[in-house]
Every structure is written in C-alpha cells, then in structure tokens.
C-alpha cells in the first residue's frame, strides 16, 4: 500500500483529497461528516461579512444521459456570522486534529480588514488560509472575489497584506476568468503566497427556458451569470494547472481544483503538477463517501506503477506539456480500421468526409459485403474517426516511421539561416 500523505506548502495531510470551499463545507456538521468518510482536509466555506442569498441557486447541465456533466451556482460566501463559523472550526479541529482545515477568506481590499480576519481565524487553530480571489458572481460586483483576482496588482497587494498577519501558509485561489492565469499566479507568488489553488468557477449561464424565456436558474423571473464547475470544466482546469506548473520562474505548490470526481482525475492533476486536490461538485452530486473510491483507486494505481508515495506522481507530466512550436512536425500516425470489429455504421466515413480530410473509402469486399478502408497516404492522423467510432478497438491510430524529429521552432530557425 502506497503512502498517500502529502506535504503541501508545509501543511501535512493524510491524503491529497480536500473538500473545496463551497456548500459541502458550510458547517461543522458537514465537515465532520466528511472527515469521518476519509477526507484529508477541508477548505471551509468562504468567511467574510455574512451575506444574504437568493433562491434558487444551482443548475446543472445533463448531457446525453449523464447527470451533472456541468454545474452552475449563484450562491455567495457564508451567510453565517464569523463567530459561529469560528466556534465550529475550533470544535471540528478538536475532534479531528489530524485532518486539515483551511479557512477560505474574502474581505474588501483594505489592509486592516485582511489583518483582522487572518488573526481571528488563526486564533481558532486553522492549518492554513485560502484567499478567495476567484468567485465570479455577486461578490465580484462588490469589488471582491474575481474582481480582485483579475487584477494582478490587487492579487499581489492583498496577498502581501494577508502574509503580514499570517503565521500559517497562505494559499491564493485564482480565477480562470482571465486571459492568462499565469499572470495572477506570478502576482500571488510576488505577494508572498506559499501556494496557489486553481481553478475557481467559470463565468456561465446554464440556459434559457424556451417556454418562459427565463434564464436557468432564475430568481423571480430574473437571472445572473454564475460559476461553472463539475466534470465539464476539467480540461480547462487541467490546462491552467499545467500552465502554472510549467512556469520556470516559480515553483510554487499548486492545489488542483476543477471537475475532479474520480481517482483518475486526481492522478491526472497530480501528474500535471498539483500537490494537493480539492473537490466540490462530485461531493455535492454523490456525497462525501466518494472519497473512499478515490483513496482506493489512487492506492491501487500507485501500487501498479510501483510508486511508494503519491508525492512521486507530482509533476511527472509537466515536462511533456509544451508550446505548440515544440511539437514534432515529422511525427506521423494514421487510422487503421479493424475489419473484424467494424460494425459498418459508417460514422467514421461521414465524419472524415464532412469534418476532416476525406480519406476513408467505402468499398465492397471480396465476399460482396460493404466495408471501409483508410487511404493511409492521405490520412493526417487527426483522430476524428476513432473519436466518433462507437466500438472500442474498431479503429486504431498506428504510428508510422517518419523523418527525424523537427519542431516548428527548429524549422523556422533553419529557414532563417537562408
């Protein structure tokens, strides 16, 4: 059995699975249930001046039979007074001293306000702080959340104010609603952040009701943009984690967030540079006990790979994540249809004809049956046919021998010598 414990910016956790700040970490009751289920830590729902929420608050994208492929919320930060939350944090910490509790914080961009809240939450024994510069709705209209998080100068300044008062590690949670997330990641590190977490939710509107023309969700006939999360955002989150992880001017630890719901997702985020992981939507969808499968699955995976510690996974795929110009232009794969497995649905032919490079031909085989074949010399190896094929194993992408590797950057350098 592998060692699943992590050391995240000095915070030791029994496993990498933390609940992200959100509805599942609203109260001591919930966080204690989560710890009983096996979560290594929890980021308490964001603390700040208590707010007033609206109903309804959540909506989901169900796609082709998959419930909650994407999830949207317009709920704000905690609606409970700070002293109530602090009392429950202290109680929880006392009952579960080995589990990690991080306080998520959001206040106005004023130095004294950051000092005040940091001192108050550290007094009850939290293991670290997460500065919420990511929430895209509601609080942003008041100059907080992503309104702060989209301005690198504000990220740096507020991080430095939190650090002035903090004795525990400071994690800065980044918004994805920005052109280049590495700019705010860098600003956080310049402000003295001990770690970053990403991504917060993505600006979104789930839909429009075609009968009432109301937005989904709506509040008495009116709607607003919310924060999108869940499985659908994982590729975006993974890319942003990778972008931050491969920055050579900063090796700041990363807590990966965004669509993590299985041990596979967890392993992918760690391979792409995340030391810790945060989960919210999957816990809301399936309950706290999903962590059991995540722990078992990750353990088995590490055993299969012969790795003694989960920390051995961290960042192993980062060197493989490069700029387009570093990719080999001479690398060549082509599609090959396995006639034994093909069900002759012709989806690959149609996809190739209409959406790709017109290289899958229909013909009649020697037994008079319809068949499909790839004209390999015209195949550009785009993968579309194997993506649309409904039968696993019916289309393989075969590697073909080619010239020595040459990247676009190398090609351009060569031409520049003429």
């Amino acid at each position, binding site marked *: 059995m592998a060692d699943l414990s992590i050391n995240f910016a000095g915070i030791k956790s029994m496993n990498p699975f933390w609940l992200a700040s959100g509805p599942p970490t609203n109260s001591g009751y919930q966080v204690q249930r989560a710890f009983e289920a096996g979560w290594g830590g929890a980021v308490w729902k964001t603390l700040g001046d208590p707010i007033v929420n609206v109903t309804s608050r959540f909506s989901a994208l169900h796609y082709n039979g998959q419930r909650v492929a994407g999830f949207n919320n317009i709920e704000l930060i905690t609606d409970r007074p700070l002293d109530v939350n602090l009392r429950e944090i202290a109680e929880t910490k006392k009952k579960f001293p080995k589990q990690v509790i991080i306080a998520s914080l959001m206040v106005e961009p004023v130095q004294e306000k950051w000092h005040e809240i940091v001192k108050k939450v550290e007094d009850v024994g939290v293991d670290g702080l997460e500065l919420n510069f990511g929430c895209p709705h509601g609080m942003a209209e008041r100059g907080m959340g992503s309104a702060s998080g989209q301005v690198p100068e504000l990220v740096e300044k507020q991080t430095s104010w939190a650090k002035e008062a903090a004795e525990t590690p400071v994690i800065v949670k980044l918004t994805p609603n920005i052109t280049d997330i590495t700019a705010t990641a860098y600003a956080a590190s310049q402000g003295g952040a001990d770690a970053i977490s990403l991504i917060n939710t993505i600006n979104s509107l789930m839909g429009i009701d075609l009968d009432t023309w109301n937005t989904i969700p709506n509040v008495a006939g009116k709607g607003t943009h919310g924060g999108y999360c869940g499985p659908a955002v994982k590729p975006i989150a993974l890319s942003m984690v990778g972008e931050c992880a491969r920055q050579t001017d900063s090796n700041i630890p990363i807590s990966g967030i965004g669509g993590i719901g299985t041990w596979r997702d967890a392993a992918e985020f760690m391979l792409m540079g995340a030391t810790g992981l945060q989960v919210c939507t999957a816990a809301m969808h399936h309950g706290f006990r999903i962590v059991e499968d995540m722990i078992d699955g990750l353990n088995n995976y590490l055993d299969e790979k012969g790795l003694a510690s989960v920390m051995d996974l961290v960042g192993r795929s980062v060197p493989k994540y490069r700029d387009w110009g570093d990719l080999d*232009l*001479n690398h060549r794969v082509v599609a090959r249809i396995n006639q034994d497995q093909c069900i002759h649905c012709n989806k690959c032919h149609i996809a190739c004809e209409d959406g790709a*490079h*017109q290289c899958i031909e229909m013909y009649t085989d020697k037994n008079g049956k319809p068949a499909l074949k790839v*004209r390999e*010399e*015209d195949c550009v190896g785009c993968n579309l046919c194997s993506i649309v094929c409904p039968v696993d194993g019916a289309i393989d992408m075969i590697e073909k021998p080619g*010239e*020595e590797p*040459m990247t676009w950057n190398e*090609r351009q350098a*060569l*031409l520049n010598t*003429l």
Partner: protein
Amino acid sequence: MHEYKIFLKEKKQIDELMEQGCQIVSVKENLNGAFVQFRPIDEEALDQVNTLRLLTPDSRKYFTNQLRLKRQVKN
C-alpha cells in the same frame, strides 16, 4: 480529394532539382503557399534560378527535411 497525389508531384519536382545539383537558397512563405528558390551549386550556372510554388503541407515539411539533410551532410 487526393492531396497525396499533389504532394508526390511536388516532391518529384523538388527531388529533380536537387538531383540536378541545385540547392535551396531562399524560402518565402505567404498566403499562397511556399515559394522555394533553387539555384545550381555550379558557379557557371548561378543565374539559373528555379522557383517552386509548393501547395501541400507535406511538401513544406519535405523541403525543410531535405534542407536539413543537406546541411547535415555539409557539416
């Protein structure tokens, strides 16, 4: 569409010029493709410039690979 046939035609043109002792001296790439200029190594024929307009991406890869190969042989 059989783009490969166009590539084969363009490859043949490149190969023939190389076999005739020409070398690539200039490449201009723009909206209309790659314009690759070949000139004989033979000093007496320096004014005989051939320009190929290459349309296919495989040809654009091919002439670059050939150029690199010649450089490697030279060095």
